């Protein structure tokens, strides 16, 4: 590309610059407000940088949201592991062991990804209550594993369809069965698939709110519910919700910034075909 200053390049960089400002504006506002002293937070000067840097909002937010943070961590790790492992096995069957009607079953699986979750909320609530799982993390983990199956199965199915069938056939000629082909051939090749799927599930489950608020009691609330309660009260000064927001965003932002390549592959897997 020539580095000439033309009207086109001015327009290009100008527009991109303005758009970047628009996209970064909320992040800037969150950081600036979180660093202010409560008495310095004032609507007309909301955009200005704090004159005195105040870190205590963060320690207060950590103190308040620490139990929620731990709940979310347990929930996310367990549910991610469960749905990823099951999704990998399902994807293996759907791509390499097709049976009569397996495409129909796969389509029926995918449908589960697109339903508005309100439609299953009432029976889910009743079922968990009947199983004595309502209110606690195990019930929430179960829900996230089940409703995570469509997307994890989809990602692994698309991933495994890239593994040449000849490789599977040669494994079978060597006398390997269903499970030994999986453990010896397919699994070792699918580490990137596991990274993509588990990062995707991690961010989805970490960010989930509807089930968190409907299916857990106060002491088991995940971080999103804790943050909503922290920010919901009108009396609270804004530095605390902003610090809490940053705290709730940090784990997923880290994934996005350091492992962004895999995150984007998960994002595309849900919509773009192989």
């Amino acid at each position, binding site marked *: *590309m020539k580095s000439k200053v033309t009207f086109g390049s001015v327009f290009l960089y100008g527009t991109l610059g303005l758009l970047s400002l628009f996209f970064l504006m909320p992040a800037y506002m969150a950081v600036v407000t979180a660093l202010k002293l409560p008495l310095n937070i004032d609507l007309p000067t909301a955009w200005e940088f704090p004159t005195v840097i105040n870190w205590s909002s963060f320690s207060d937010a950590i103190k308040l949201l620490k139990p929620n943070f731990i709940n979310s961590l347990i929930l996310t790790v367990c549910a991610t592991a469960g749905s990823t492992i099951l999704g990998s096995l*399902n994807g293996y069957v759907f791509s390499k062991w097709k049976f009569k009607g397996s495409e129909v079953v796969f389509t029926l699986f995918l*449908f*589960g990804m697109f339903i*508005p979750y309100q*439609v299953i909320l009432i029976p*889910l609530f009743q*079922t968990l*209550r009947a199983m004595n799982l309502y209110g606690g993390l195990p019930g929430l983990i179960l829900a996230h594993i089940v409703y995570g199956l469509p997307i994890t199965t989809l990602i692994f199915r698309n991933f495994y369809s890239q593994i040449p069938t000849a490789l599977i056939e040669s494994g079978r000629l060597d006398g390997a069965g269903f499970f030994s082909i999986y453990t010896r051939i397919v699994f070792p090749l699918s580490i990137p698939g596991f990274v993509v799927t588990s990062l995707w599930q991690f961010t989805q489950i970490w960010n989930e709110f509807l089930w968190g608020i409907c299916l857990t009691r106060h002491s088991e609330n995940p971080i999103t519910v804790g943050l909503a309660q922290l920010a919901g009260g009108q009396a609270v000064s804004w530095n605390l919700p902003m610090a809490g927001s940053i705290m709730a965003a940090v784990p997923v932002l880290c994934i996005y910034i350091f492992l962004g390549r895999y995150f984007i592959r998960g994002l*595309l897997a849900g919509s773009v075909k192989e």
Partner: protein
Amino acid sequence: MREASRDRLKAFLTLLPSMVLIGIFVYGFIGNTIWTSMTDWGGSGSLSLTPEKNFVGLDNYVELFTGFLYSGFRQDLVNAVYYSVMLLVGAVGLGMFIAILLDQKPKGEDVLRTIFLYPMSLSFIVSGTIWRWLLAPQGGVNVLPKYVGMEPLTFEWLSSQAAILEFNWQNLFQVALYVISFIMILVGLYLLKGDSKKAIRRWLGPGIIIGAGAWLFGGMLPEALFMEETHGFNMATLGIIMATVWQYSGYTMALYLAGFNGISQDLRDAAMLDGASEVNYYRYVAIPMLKPITISAVIILSHISLKMFDLIFAMTGPDNAETGHPALNMFLTTFRANDFAKGAAIAIVLFLIAAMFIVPYLVAQYRQRRRG
């Protein structure tokens, strides 16, 4: 051969637990919600663990669409429709625009892409909390014009009572026919350049007839309500739409960018050799080629806008009338008012709207897989 059939059995048994789980938790539960929506959930005994349920048919739906007490739900539904359309236009438009800009390979493309996509990784509760602060009436976005020497805005982003594009719910059927006719005429005009005969016969003609019919004979249609009740586009939802576009246009950008990168450089060079300008290349070559991506984006965004709960909850709380949404109404009706039957009916309405988009999409994908 026996070995092979045993492996087949093993494969099926591996899949079985997931099939059972999906069968119960997706299809069984949807069936259960449909059933619940057709009962009265024991009326006053609704708080007990096993309320006595009586079958009432479609009464709950009739109540929601015509009942005196449920005008809030009807406004929520109207909000959801406007919200979905605005989100689609906004997020697809802005995402496509950014993707085209980044496709020019500016310097710092990686950094820019990261900036445009990071909102996508955040929870709606996080972004909703921050946007609520940004849209505070006397601060945030409203004071920004001061920094370039203009008057500050005074728009009440989340609590404005103003509404535009209002219509009378009594005339629901007529309005629905107008909308159908408008869409058909638009599609007809769009297709006119290609197969003009088919466009006129299939879309343009019927569209005009439906529109004219609704205009001439609309008064003869049954009225959906016994009294006048206006609903419109609540200006207060603009703030929520803006926040959602902010969060999701990075997603459509990523989709289009992946699509643009998949178009071979040869094709682009060929288009340029044929004298296509940069604009024409995207207008006539790249974007038509990425029609599957546009369809995916529309499906996923409409699905997101229909179940939108977290963002509105965080930005306005669950019971702000101006920015209501059926997803929030369902939550309040079910878990605050303990009216599980009405809650289930609202959920089914949402589900049916979502299914209208998703079922054709999944069927088309299934056919494509079988062919490919």
